[in-house]
């Protein structure tokens, strides 16, 4: 396991509690937390990989006790200070030092629909050629760590470390989060959906036919 957020396969959690489709938020402040975070994201100060890394880099005790939007808010505050958008003093006092030089980039109400509809595609042209084909057997990197930065961001879940799977889809070439979260550029790579037999992942699989599929970058994989 790299960090506490990497919880796939963990034992000890309780029941999953279904919920009506009508419930969108669970507290009055949730929609504001969502909207503030999305609006700040459009300032261009960080990318999605860095913002995920800041959420998962919260202290393990905080990560465990914070609700979803509390994690968002904590990471947002950390990113705003880290990128210089606000100062620690401003955060502590709540009092602005003055209009930010980034104010010109502010997300306006009229631009919201377009920004949300555009999203942020992660596919890229170029990058290395795909070395695996559908049906190829591959082995996942072990340990499941970022190889460029100690403790760095990765999208390789610990429960897949060292496992053998089969390529079931080729998604094209996508930005590599392990690089992009750390200012090393987008370093795009072929991305594959890889299927693993539940029997190869768990000591007590529920059913011999069950599988888990994960999307994994080429550099996470080697030929089996």
């Amino acid at each position, binding site marked *: 396991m790299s960090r506490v957020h990497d919880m796939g396969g963990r034992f000890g959690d309780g029941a*999953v509690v*279904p919920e009506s489709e009508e419930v969108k938020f669970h507290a009055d402040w949730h929609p504001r937390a*969502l909207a503030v975070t999305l*609006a700040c994201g459009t300032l261009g100060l960080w990318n999605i990989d860095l913002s995920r890394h800041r959420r998962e880099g919260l202290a393990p005790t905080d990560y465990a006790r914070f609700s979803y939007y509390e994690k968002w808010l904590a990471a947002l505050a950390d990113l705003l200070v880290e990128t210089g958008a606000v100062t620690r003093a401003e955060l502590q006092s709540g009092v602005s030092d003055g209009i930010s030089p980034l*104010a010109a980039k502010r997300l306006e109400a009229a631009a919201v629909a377009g920004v*949300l509809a555009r999203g942020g595609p992660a596919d890229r042209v170029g990058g290395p050629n795909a070395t695996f084909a559908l049906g190829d057997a591959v082995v996942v990197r072990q340990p499941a760590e970022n190889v460029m930065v100690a403790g760095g961001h990765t999208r390789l879940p610990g429960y897949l470390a060292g496992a053998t799977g089969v390529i079931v889809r080729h998604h094209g070439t996508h930005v590599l989060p392990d690089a992009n979260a750390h200012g090393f550029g987008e370093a795009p790579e072929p991305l594959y959906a890889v299927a693993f037999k539940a029997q190869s992942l768990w000591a007590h699989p529920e*059913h011999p036919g069950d599988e888990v599929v*994960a999307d994994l970058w080429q550099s996470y994989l080697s030929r089996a």
Partner: protein
Amino acid sequence: MPHDHDHPHSLLPSEPALRVKALETLLTDKGLIDPAALDEIIDTYENRIGPRNGAHVVARAWSDPAFKAALLADAGPVLAEMGYVGRQGEHMVVVENTADVHNMVVCTLCSCYPWPLLGIPPGWYKSDAYRARVVREPRKVLAEFGVHLPDETAVRVWDSTAEVRYLVLPMRPAGTEAMDEAALQALVSRDSMIGCGVLT
């Protein structure tokens, strides 16, 4: 790694409602956010984007074999044409449930979810319990939704570890042959498009 007390977020009020209020006020005063834009974002996800989008796609796939074939082959252009694209749905894959395979979707590392088709993820989708357990014991999780699969059906759990988002195309319930697309749409639950529900 900096210790918790070094994190700037600890400078904010500890109560989350006050925390978001303080941040929103500060950022507005600095000209970094526009409260009207926040209202627009909230209105979008509260009232305009939700699981009825996904249900529309599912009902159409059930009704139109050519559409279904195109959707399963390459969902992106098909969904773009319907306007169901954007943030957290930039790269869509639709996976079909059959008598042989039941698909489920999770993001064990955070809570990635196909927003343009299903809206904001439900609380349980973001819970530690779902994220930790569904890859290891999907059938126990399904039972908590009241779903019990026959032994002939294999489960395939899709862990959304990249920017690809998955939508489950549930099996069309028996006895719905005469229904039109609008009637079918009303049958499709959000949970069935995540793979945590089946339609009967």
